């Protein structure tokens, strides 16, 4: 791999930003390895967060799933499962980290804005301005079965609700004037008169009236992450998000096309193109040589895609229970079953199963692959494999062409899976001038190089200054 001449690229000074995604679900996390640790012990979370902080990462990221995954109506038993509540876990990590951002995935369908905005504010204050919120929505009654409000929103309404949710949350986060709480116990009142504005919001989804209980943090508002990939989701991100956590980070052309599309939407939303960071989720496999890295990938894939997992992944494509088949044998002879998506995790998600099956059959036949080998080769693909230097060059090419701003890295092993990246890859990036050598700021917003949120209060202040 050749070094990129910085003069030839649109963003020669681009800096890579890393997050770590402690996933807690999916077969990408290997639990069969003797070094695989607990998915719930607080020590695992502390270990990963502190390793990431040692590697000068921007963020530690937690997901959320409000119902345990099922396949064919039964609890999915092959993958890691059982996660802590994200904000609660992150509030604990705030006490044992100093710099790293703490990002919670939290759902707008099954929360109410005053409660969730307050919890996020609490995390933001306890961490000194390091909180982030990955805004997600749910559109199925299957998840609703765990909630008072029950039911579900259809796909369009869930974004309406999410957007209104954000509007209300931002109003809550802006309700306290700077310096609202007195700086002396001799003050006539704990808070200055009129310093806390009541928030009254009446929208199609919400009708609230309250005096919020928390000031703004050192970063103003929690940083907003979003992961939607549909046209609607991308527009939502372009209007609302500070960071997009995309699925377009493996292939350069795909990543660049996604970033270009996002910037078009960002401009259409009236925002400057540097207002949004693009951090695709990825796995990174590092070896001392290309051969070693390739060999490492082979055993990692075999550990991730066990025979049972191969049958499960294929079962999702065929929409059939294939658990009694032989993963090391040929592909199922049947045609895939076409059915409605019930919303349950593990129900059919493949856009065109007939096309997928035809492609898999052709490739398996041409290469003599078993079902498991086919799933490994053609199933969901992700990640980068290489040497530290090779990966550093590759990632800087992505960043310097504006295809990504960095990566949200999912370790395949908990809690030690980040060590190679921190110890081997980060120094290579630093040597090439593409990665920070120390934290320049204190807040997540500063780490990401984002502007302070343009809020009602900052807008008012600017108007006053301009006037």
């Amino acid at each position: 791999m050749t070094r990129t001449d910085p003069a030839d690229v649109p963003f020669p000074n681009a800096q890579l930003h890393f997050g770590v995604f402690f996933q807690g679900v999916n077969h990408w996390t290997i639990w069969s390895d003797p070094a695989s640790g607990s998915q719930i012990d607080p020590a695992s979370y502390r270990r990963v967060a502190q390793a990431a902080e040692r590697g000068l990462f921007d963020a530690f990221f937690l997901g959320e799933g409000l119902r345990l995954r099922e396949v064919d109506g039964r609890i999915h038993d092959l993958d890691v499962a059982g996660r802590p509540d994200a904000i609660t876990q992150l509030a604990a990590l705030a006490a044992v980290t100093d710099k790293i951002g703490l990002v919670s995935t939290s759902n707008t369908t099954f929360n109410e804005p005053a409660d969730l905005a307050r919890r996020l504010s609490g995390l933001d204050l306890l961490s000194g301005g390091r909180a982030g919120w990955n805004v997600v929505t749910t559109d199925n009654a299957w998840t609703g079965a765990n909630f008072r409000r029950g039911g579900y929103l259809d796909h369009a309404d869930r974004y309406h609700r999410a957007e209104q949710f954000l509007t209300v949350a931002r109003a809550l986060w802006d309700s306290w004037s700077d310096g609202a709480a007195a700086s002396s116990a001799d003050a006539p009142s704990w808070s200055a008169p009129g310093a806390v504005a009541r928030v009254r919001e009446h929208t199609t989804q919400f009708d609230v009236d309250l005096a919020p209980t928390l000031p703004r943090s050192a970063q103003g508002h929690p940083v907003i992450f979003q992961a939607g990939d549909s046209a609607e989701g991308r527009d939502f991100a372009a209007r609302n998000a500070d960071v997009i956590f995309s699925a377009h980070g493996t292939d350069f052309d795909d990543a660049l096309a996604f970033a270009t599309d996002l910037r078009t939407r960002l401009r259409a939303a009236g925002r400057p193109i540097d207002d949004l960071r693009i951090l695709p989720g990825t796995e990174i496999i590092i070896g001392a040589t290309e051969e070693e890295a390739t060999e490492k990938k082979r055993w990692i894939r075999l550990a991730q895609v066990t025979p049972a997992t191969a049958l499960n992944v294929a079962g999702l494509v065929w929409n059939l229970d294939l658990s009694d088949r032989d993963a090391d044998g040929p592909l199922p002879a049947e045609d895939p079953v076409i059915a409605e998506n019930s919303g349950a995790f593990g129900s059919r998600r493949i856009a065109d199963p007939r096309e997928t099956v035809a492609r898999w059959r052709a490739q398996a036949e041409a290469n003599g692959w078993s079902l498991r080998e086919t799933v490994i080769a053609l199933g969901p693909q992700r990640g980068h494999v290489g040497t530290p230097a090779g990966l550093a060059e590759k990632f800087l090419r992505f960043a310097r062409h504006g295809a990504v701003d960095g990566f949200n890295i999912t370790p395949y092993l908990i809690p030690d899976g980040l060590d190679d990246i921190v110890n081997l890859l980060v120094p290579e990036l630093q040597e090439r001038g593409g990665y920070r050598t120390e934290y320049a700021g204190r807040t997540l917003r500063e780490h990401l190089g984002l502007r302070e949120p343009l809020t009602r209060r900052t807008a008012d202040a600017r108007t006053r200054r301009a006037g």
Partner: protein
Amino acid sequence: MPHRVGRLTFHPAPAPAPHPTVPPAPWKDTEVPLHLALEIDGDGAHPAAWRRAAHAPDTLLTPERVRGVGTIAENAGFTLVTLDDDVLPPGPAPAPVGRIGAVERAAYLAASTSTLGIAPVVSTSYAEPFHTSSQLASLDHISIGRAGWLVAISPAPETARVWGRPPVEGPEAHLREARDSIRASRELWDSWEDDAVIREVATSRYLDRDRLHYIDFTGETFAVKGPAIVPRPPQGQLVVFAPDGLLPAGVADVTLVSRPDPAVLRRADTPLTFAEVELALDTPAGTAADRIADLERHAPWPDRGRLRYTGGADGLVRLLTELTSVVDGVRLHALVLDEDLAVLSRLVLPALRTARVTAAPVPGHSLSTTLGLSRPANRYASAAPTGDAR
């Protein structure tokens, strides 16, 4: 004024003996006769406590404050701290109007301490029981078994407008939500058996799905399918604290009584009973009476019907020692945390420890172990494993 404590009458005059002694005696099934809880929300029990706090108002809502008070309580040897909460502001101006959520503070404090029990207030009137259950189970994991739940209701009508939900109308309805929320949480905490994670490489199974349970909880106003998304808490069940009269029998573990009168104590049908005790102590900065008078210039100290002690450390030691004969623990509400906690730490708790009236939690013990509660069996626990039958 003498205080009545059950059948006792207590006069908080300075004690003649500086070091009262009480014979060490086992009490119920716990190692010590008296468990000590401390409420650490805000600046103290008095609405104007912030005026005597050792810090400015604009440093109340900070991690340093949470860690500072919590670690002093741990160092002092308290069994647990409680953290009051509500979505409404803690007080009207000129009192403090800001408060970080109790679960978030509790989690931060759990990662900053090692033996202290931590029980946040979580109100049941409007919260989603599934979220409440997940948050509290997570707190128990984070603290490795030191978490409790102080149940509260939110009867103020304006709370419904904060949540944007139809109001829960009338006391009966709030009690119903409390009861159903706790029952749903308890079922969710049991919905993973302790050994649900099997990591059986030979069969590629991480979970034994037979050790996970749909709870299919149906309350009067809501239903929850389950199972939990968080594995069973280390304690099995969190220790549930509830004010006297809030819950039907068999739902909570510890009843908090405002006055330890015989009638109230007979009514409490939980394994443990704690008395609520408000206190103002003589400190180097002023006598208890002077300090109260100073704060009363700004606001009255509302009478919440709780036992209230005013005076020197020795008198409080005697009061708490007397209370060992009627309750299992006390929850202290200090006039001004920054002033009274120092006296509790330097004088009161050491005297009680020396007399073996109380003891600091043993490292590695869960909150329920410290309180002498046995670890609950799992209501869904299956019979002996069936080997390769599944």
